[in-house]
């Protein structure tokens, strides 16, 4: 057999704390969907309409999950869980992309989706344990005056492109750029993603995980923190603060 000199590629992720992280307090989340709406506005998410939504093609990067557990008389509601991309440190979506559209940012430690590389194989969505990725099944119509509210900092995706939560990377860049222009370090809480900004209960906290003094790393390590499907070793950067039922809501 001819030796084609194909380099051996091994998954090699170090278990680091990550750079950017989010904590979501399930105790104070009221499931109002403001984060979902804010995310859609910030990130130019298309409106798919009733029919496609029925096929499960809605494009929201964030969904508020809420289920019921138990047999009929003793039905208990699970807490509201806004689930988007967990920005895994060891992401299952990355190694499966044949065109390297789903790559890991070394610098920000985020999972990137490079829209101009994406050819729409949808392998990444099939491999995502959080079902965080959504696919543009068609070029959805945006009737006037909807194009006037486009965010110029975010690409408007077209048909055949996979997309997902970016942790509002455009706001991260803006914050870093502003801090650099002012010649200072980025402050904790200066970068606020659209979902955290819209949350009326302040359930979503965003910040740097590599800074032990930041609000998000304190909350994540406070003991109530759980990570979704952590046993897969995906190293998610989103921490859900478990319900203590201290606010009177019993489901």
């Amino acid at each position, binding site marked *: 057999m001819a030796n084609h000199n194909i380099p051996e590629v091994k998954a090699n992720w170090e278990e680091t704390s990550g750079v950017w992280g989010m904590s979501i307090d399930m105790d104070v989340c009221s499931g109002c969907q403001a984060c979902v709406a804010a995310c859609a506005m910030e990130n130019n998410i298309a409106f798919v309409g009733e029919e496609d939504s029925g096929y499960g093609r809605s494009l929201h990067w964030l969904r508020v999950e809420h289920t019921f557990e138990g047999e009929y008389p003793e039905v208990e509601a699970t807490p509201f869980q806004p689930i988007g991309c967990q920005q895994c440190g060891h992401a299952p979506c990355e190694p499966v992309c044949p065109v390297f559209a789903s*790559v890991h*940012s070394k*610098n920000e430690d985020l999972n990137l989706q*490079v829209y101009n590389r994406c050819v729409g194989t949808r392998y990444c969505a099939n491999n995502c344990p959080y079902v965080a990725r959504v696919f543009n099944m068609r070029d959805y119509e945006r009737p006037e005056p909807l194009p006037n509210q486009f965010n110029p900092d*975010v690409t408007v995706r077209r048909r055949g492109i996979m997309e997902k939560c970016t942790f509002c*990377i*455009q706001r991260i*860049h803006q914050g870093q750029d502003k801090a*650099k222009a002012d010649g200072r370090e980025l402050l904790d809480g200066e970068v606020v993603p659209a979902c955290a900004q819209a949350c009326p209960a302040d359930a979503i906290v965003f910040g740097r995980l590599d800074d032990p003094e930041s609000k998000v790393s304190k909350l994540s390590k406070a003991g109530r923190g759980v990570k979704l499907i952590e046993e897969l070793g995906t190293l998610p950067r989103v921490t859900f603060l478990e319900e203590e039922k201290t606010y009177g809501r019993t489901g």
Partner: protein
Amino acid sequence: MQKVLDLIKNPSFKIAILVFVLVAFSAGLVGIYFTQIPPEQPILFPHNRHVNLQIQCLYCHSGAWKQASAGLPTEQKCWACHGQLKKYFDPVVPVSEWPIELQKLNDYAVNNKPIKWVPVYQVPDFVHFNHRPHVAKGVACETCHGDMSKKTVATLEQTVNMGWCIDCHTKKSANDPVLQAKLLDCGTCHY
């Protein structure tokens, strides 16, 4: 099969193929030519005259040092100087005797119409270029935009593609692995 061979041997078929190849080739050339000519601007702005008067680039393109977009001047900015220039302000010289481009400017400024400048350097929607870090790091305007003291309207001096960006980013960050990780990260420009 024999019919096809006869057809290929037919001299008129050969000529037709030759004509087709020539037409396709020249159509390609014309296409390339149209990408190289500068777009038509509403006013044939003489950059060279303004630069030779020692007017800074940042006076008109004032966004370059603080934000992503360098910006194009409004008619009010032009009129701030031109409205004061004595030669044209003198009531003795009627507007109709001004140079033709200044007549256009007068029309824009007096009627408060926006000048619809056509951007020359453009990147696709999925690329997010930011002028500020480039200016802050001391990249001179003429590195990318050419020597404006020798040009009238802006022309495309440099094919703007990713290889060109990456080349410069690699060179500038050769000694700094941390900076290189940032400059060569996909998420720096594509999001």
